[in-house]
């Protein structure tokens, strides 16, 4: 097994901060840690199995209709994940609302199927899917960490910043409300890219 498939997308080839894919959902579901976590897991499952299935089918599909076949496979997987979430974690599923369904439009999934699964063996493709899903989930969790901690004072809905610090309770602190807006999520993603590139000089654009 090629370990690079799994670890590469975590940093040097990260889908969000290096390939700049899937930004839209990264802004939408990162207000709190819990939905971000569930979203990350869902995307890992979908990318991994989409890659696996497409890699198994890769020799039998005429290339003219491959996009349609990919869409059918991905859509089926997304519906499975959506139904699973509705059945077992209904609250989170409600919070994520349309964004689970919109995993189908996440560029990472189509991107990996097109770029990797159609030309590689099933096991490698599966690992590549898991790796990219993990890379996506990792960035989601980092963004959600800052947004939830400073925007709501909680992590996974557990209170971190004590209630008594708040102005309403006689303290001095106040939640940074701008953290709840998507623009701030974009700025956080930008900062992550900034920090990441300053440690990885070879990624810096000239």
């Amino acid at each position, binding site marked *: 097994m090629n370990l690079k498939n799994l670890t590469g997308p975590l940093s040097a080839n990260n889908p969000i901060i290096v390939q700049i894919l899937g930004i839209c959902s990264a802004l939408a579901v990162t207000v709190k840690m819990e939905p971000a976590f569930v979203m990350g897991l869902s995307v890992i499952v979908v990318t991994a199995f989409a890659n696996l299935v497409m890699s198994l089918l890769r020799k039998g599909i005429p290339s003219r209709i491959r996009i349609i076949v990919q869409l059918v496979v991905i859509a089926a997987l997304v519906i499975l994940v959506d139904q699973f979430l509705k059945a077992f974690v209904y609250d989170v599923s409600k919070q994520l609302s349309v964004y689970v369904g919109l995993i189908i439009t996440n560029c990472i999934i189509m991107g990996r199927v097109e770029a990797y699964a159609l030309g590689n063996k099933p096991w490698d493709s599966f690992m590549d899917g898991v790796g990219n899903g993990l890379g996506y989930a990792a960035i989601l969790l980092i963004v959600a960490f800052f947004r939830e901690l400073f925007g709501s004072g909680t992590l996974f809905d557990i209170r971190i910043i004590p209630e008594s610090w708040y102005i309403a309770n006689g303290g*001095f602190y*106040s939640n*940074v*409300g*701008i*953290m709840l*807006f998507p623009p701030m999520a974009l*700025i956080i993603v930008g900062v992550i890219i900034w920090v990441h590139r300053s440690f990885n000089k070879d990624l810096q654009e000239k």
Partner: protein
Amino acid sequence: MKALRNLVDNVKPTFTEGGKLGFLASLFDAIETFLFVPNTTTKKGAHVRDCNDMKRTMFFVVLALIPAFLFGCYNTGSQVGLEGFAALMYGLVRVLPMLAVSYVVGLGIEVIYAQIRKEEVAEGYFVTGFLIPMIMPVSTPLWMVALGVAFAVIFGKEVFGGTGMNIFNPALVARAFVFFAFTPQMSGEKVWYSDWTMMGAQVDGVSGATALEQLATTGQMQWSVMDAFLGFIPGSFGETSTLCILLGGALLLYTGIASWRTMLSVFVGGLAMGYLFQAVGLTEYPAYYHLLVGGFAFGAVFMATDPVTSAQTNMGKYIVGFMTGALAVLVRVVNPAYPEGMMLAILFMNALAPTVDYFVVEANINRRKNRVKIVK
């Protein structure tokens, strides 16, 4: 003066590259050029040089801000029941921590950046740091000011490449950040009044809506037009007195630092939009109220005219200025969530200014092209 020069020359080797405190070179350079006009001469070719460099320019802007600043101090005191000299002193003491936080945090980040990039500390923050306390409500908690300043300097300025490269006015970025991050603390009735009990100030129970909020909700304000013009109304620290702002504006125009085109067209734009709303019956108060209350005058004189973020072409200055004024009044009247539209209008037009410039230049090129006659 000579002793000071000698002192600076004596300690200079310590602060240059290789000296003991070489890592503070940019800070030393900043202080030296602050004290003395650098006597560098151009090595090659002919250039017109003026001793009025960026430090001197920034100094004039701060000088122009002084009347509004002093009046802001007085008004802060007078809003909590003090009079005369006591009111001035109260306001001065009240705003000093905010000013200190603004300069320490802002300059601290600037020095760190200059050191990392091995550049001189740029002068731009001299003005920005003075502007920031003037556009904040007087009771804004200090850590919020610090956070706003840090955000503005890093994301409003340094990521674009520092002074002179920024797209948005840094002082307004700080204001916008604090406004959107801490909306409950930055609006409402309490924040416009000082909450410090000292010098016998009557702070208990002092609260009330600003003139802008009153105009937005009821269509009239409890102050006379003269009070609004002179500035005896609650509001952000330095923005209340249109008279003092115009005094500063006169200095900026006299020294040629601010563009009269921008300044004039902002006022014209605001007035035109105000009359339009009055004509269609959306507002009942006279249109010129818009120019007297809130941050309109302050924004028009000190913010919209920022030579970096405003338009560069003369025609562009008219267009951007007019649209800034018009947009500010549009936001004030039409959007009930934002009684003050000046900040949003200026930031928005900052973003559009390069595009406006582009089309002005294109139009100029086309006009000249059409003038050319091809002789066969």
